[in-house]
């Protein structure tokens, strides 16, 4: 048997051995991750499939419902939020706006209050924006306020 053939056979065997070794190193971790995900979220998402764990605190389901009930499809909304930190590289107003634009579709987030049809205020007073507003509705805990911009 030539050296070339031995080398080829060796490479095939080494491939099989390394691939099996690689699987042995990772299969269990992947399996555990998947099992953990199912255990952690099955009950939660059975009740509320559109919940976003860890970020839902930015805009709790009750707040989403409060705002959604008052908005129309295609409404352009501006989020007025109190300043503050959130995570590295993202401040609180940016985080809450990002979350609101996802949660509140098909209403559409705008970056400039002057372009908005409605103002959503979170821990802040919508009157601070200096816009002419129709009646301001407030949530029962007073943290959220909704106002339509007068036209």
């Amino acid at each position, binding site marked *: 048997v030539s050296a070339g053939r031995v080398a*080829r056979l060796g490479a095939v065997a080494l491939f099989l051995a*390394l691939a099996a070794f690689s*699987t042995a190193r990772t299969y269990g971790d*992947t399996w555990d*991750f998947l099992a953990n995900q199912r255990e952690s*979220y099955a009950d939660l998402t059975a009740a509320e*499939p*559109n919940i*976003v764990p860890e970020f839902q605190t930015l805009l709790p389901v009750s707040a989403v419902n409060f705002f959604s009930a008052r908005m129309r499809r295609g409404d352009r909304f501006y989020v007025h939020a109190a300043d503050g930190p959130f995570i590295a590289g993202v401040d609180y107003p940016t985080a809450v706006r990002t*979350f609101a634009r996802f949660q509140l579709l098909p209403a559409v987030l705008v970056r400039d209050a002057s372009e908005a049809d409605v103002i959503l205020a979170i821990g802040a007073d919508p009157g601070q924006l200096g816009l002419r507003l129709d009646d301001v509705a407030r949530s029962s805990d007073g943290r959220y306020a909704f106002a339509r911009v007068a036209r």
Partner: protein
Amino acid sequence: VSGSLSGLLFAQVLYLAIGAGLLPLLGIAPTWDLWLRRFGLAYMVGVAVAGILAAHLALLDAPLGLFELTVLAVVLLVLGWRRLRRTPTPAPKRALNLPRPLAWANVALSVATALLLGALLGQATSAFAARPLKEWDGWAIWATKAKALYEFGGVHDPVFSSYEPVAHPILLPSLEAMGFRAMDAFDGTLIHVQLIALAFGFATALWWLLADRVPSAVLGVGLLALLSATPVLTQLSTNLADVPLAFFFALGVVSLGRFVLAGERWTLVAAALFLGAAMLTKSEGLLFAAAAFLAAAIVVAAGRDWRRLGHVAVSATAAFAILVPWRIYLAANDLRNSEYRLSDALDPAYLADRSERVGPAVSRLWDELWSAGWGVLPLVALVAVTAGALARRYRLAAFALLWPILAFGGLVLVYWISVVPVELTLTWTAERIVVSLVVGAAALAPLLVGEAFQLEREARTRDEHAG
């Protein structure tokens, strides 16, 4: 509101039917014999084509739903069936002809790996079906775009022209918007089932793409190592586009590898389709596809095979054409990537000013390639390249070595010219951006090893006849 799982599953059946009809129409399987042997590609072909079509139609505010998909599937099946009837020529089949003990070992290993893989993907299905949108980019970028496409039926201006990152292409959101329409609701949990269907589709397509050249044991062991690597299923579950990109890219690069090896033209059609889908899945898909086509072109040109070089050029042109409507939309709306401008890569002064970014980028990407979650997959791929070279498949081995080097260099260049602080952008992206490199290299590995195995079998057969 919960979505309908049956609707989502029906959409997957339609993708399969669309792909089954397209196999003969695209020339991937022009005869009944080949259609049966390449049927495993049908689902991913259907997903790629439906995704590309939906992404393009979204630019015209024309949504694709179950009705349109059903009509498309029926039309393509009829046309494909008619095409099959007209081209009855059987294709030659390359038999592996294993001796009995080796054949038994081959079957045993294949069954064992198939069972392990089936168990893992089954476990993943139950986990994905219960997992909500969780990671920031998963909901803030990809699900936001998918939800907007679902709600508005197209690229509604305020969303797609002002929500960063505006330059991310929309194949995955378009697929998910079709999923929501099939479910008749936006369901941020159940849509993950479509993601795991992609994993099943990828595994099936890769298997059927290589089964006629690679012993099933080699293929099974390689595929199991690839899909059990922790980043594949963990990152797929996040609803980010990196793993779907890697799946399309890997199928494209394996198709291209087969062309470099054997010059089969149908593999170039598959390469164009899958690499085109990769480009429309994420911005870096363009870089990866360019690296793959350039590597194939260099290898073919080095062999002075000008005819094949022409074929590679045609395939590359077709793949890049898939991206054109999206690029026109970006240009028409003056939407740009805010993190880098490719023209800066041609400015020596700009590059010199930022040269301190190269070291950290190379170091971090290299570390990510060898991170524990991948097992030893990069080493597996390197051994496969060696096996290919030992089998004297020099073009294929060179291709398998060259495209990752070009892609790695391209990634470093992007980090080099980016305006985002290098440590920050590496923290955000390095772990994800290497997925296509590892998955592509690992997917190509069985083809290289299969060649070494086959050459050895042929030598042994010659010995037996001589004896």
